[in-house]
């Protein structure tokens, strides 16, 4: 128990600035206070410091503009069936998406996985870059909400997930394309939130293109099913590309695309504005 108090005090102290952490831990060591009292003192200080940070508008902006809207939409777009598709294909030789050829299915999964990885990384990176001091709190909330919504959006009711450890496999496979990239995005922005405008422009371009392609693939299934219901063969990637309407998919998913691309676009705008200001000051 004693180690647990000491470990918790050390863990809490990581939320303080490096200089303050050193002096506070040094004071507690010198005073020789009991472990529970040291923990209480550290908790009080960390809470005061964190509450002080939330007096600014940036953490609230990040919470309301990134964490709350992006997490449910990411989770909703997570329904990739990365796990179900290979299982059905290898065990039964059938496609989860009726009427879609295996190459087309693979392309659909790859595009959506790439879009999810991009969105989760860019959102987490923008979160950290826009409010660096509250990156731990907002970052933790971001990862937690993504995980909670992912469980909520899984293909079957949550109660079935307790039936067998294997029932968690689809949820875990969906986690893999969102949580590690998001964590990596947070770490990258914590290390160096400054970015070059050219790199940001390229990132925005990539995010929009990969997002549009991912939503385009959502229309593939309808086109393939329509063809299959008329006794047609499974459609290849090229045939699907010709039949599915990109502009229609974009209009249908415009809101989701805007919200998921929003954080990195906002970061680009903020970056451009600060560059212009510094140039103005130099002039």
């Amino acid at each position, binding site marked *: 128990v004693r180690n647990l108090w000491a470990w918790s005090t050390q863990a809490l102290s990581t939320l303080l600035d490096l200089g303050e952490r050193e002096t506070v831990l*040094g*004071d507690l060591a010198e005073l020789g206070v009991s472990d529970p009292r040291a923990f209480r003192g550290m908790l009080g200080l960390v809470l005061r410091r964190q509450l002080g940070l939330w007096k600014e508008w940036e953490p609230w902006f990040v919470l309301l503009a990134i964490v709350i809207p992006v997490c449910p939409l990411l989770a909703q777009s997570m329904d990739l069936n990365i796990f179900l598709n290979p299982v059905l294909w290898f065990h039964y030789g059938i496609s989860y998406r009726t009427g879609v050829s295996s190459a087309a299915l693979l392309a659909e999964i790859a595009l959506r996985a790439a879009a999810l990885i991009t969105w989760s990384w860019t959102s987490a990176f923008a979160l950290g870059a826009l409010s660096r001091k509250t990156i731990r709190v907002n970052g933790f909330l971001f990862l937690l909400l993504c995980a909670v919504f992912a469980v909520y959006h899984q293909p079957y009711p949550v109660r079935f997930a307790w039936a067998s450890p294997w029932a968690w496999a689809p949820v875990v496979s969906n986690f893999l394309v969102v949580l590690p990239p998001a964590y990596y995005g947070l770490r990258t922005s914590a290390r160096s939130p400054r970015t070059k405008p050219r790199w940001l422009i390229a990132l925005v371009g990539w995010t929009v293109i990969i997002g549009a392609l991912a939503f385009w693939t959502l229309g593939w299934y309808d086109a393939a099913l329509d063809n299959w219901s008329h006794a047609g063969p499974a459609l290849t990637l090229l045939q699907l590309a010709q039949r599915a309407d990109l502009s229609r998919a974009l209009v249908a998913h415009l809101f989701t695309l805007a919200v998921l691309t929003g954080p990195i676009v906002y970061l680009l705008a903020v970056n451009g504005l600060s560059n212009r200001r510094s140039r103005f000051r130099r002039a």
Partner: protein
Amino acid sequence: MLGEFEYLLIAAAVRLGDEAYGAAVMQEIERSSRRECSIGALYTTLDRLETKGMIKTWIGKATQERGGRSKRMIRVTAKGVAAATAFYETVQQVSHGTSWQVAHTGACK
């Protein structure tokens, strides 16, 4: 006008002089006021007083007994001394001629 804890902190720092730093001030406050002082209250009050220009703090040397960790040294500025003096005088003036016997105040026992 200073708060009570701000006054206690300034008084302790003045008493300790060149030896005023986080842990020492905390011990001094606990010894003189005979009540527990939390490290959270101490550090946030230090920041507040420094923002008001009543104290100056800097990072001092590390010692063995602190596990090789540095100290936050404290020095009270002239503005801090003036504010503490004003606080003390106000308390003295307010208390002058006041009888603290329970019967006189009509307070419940």
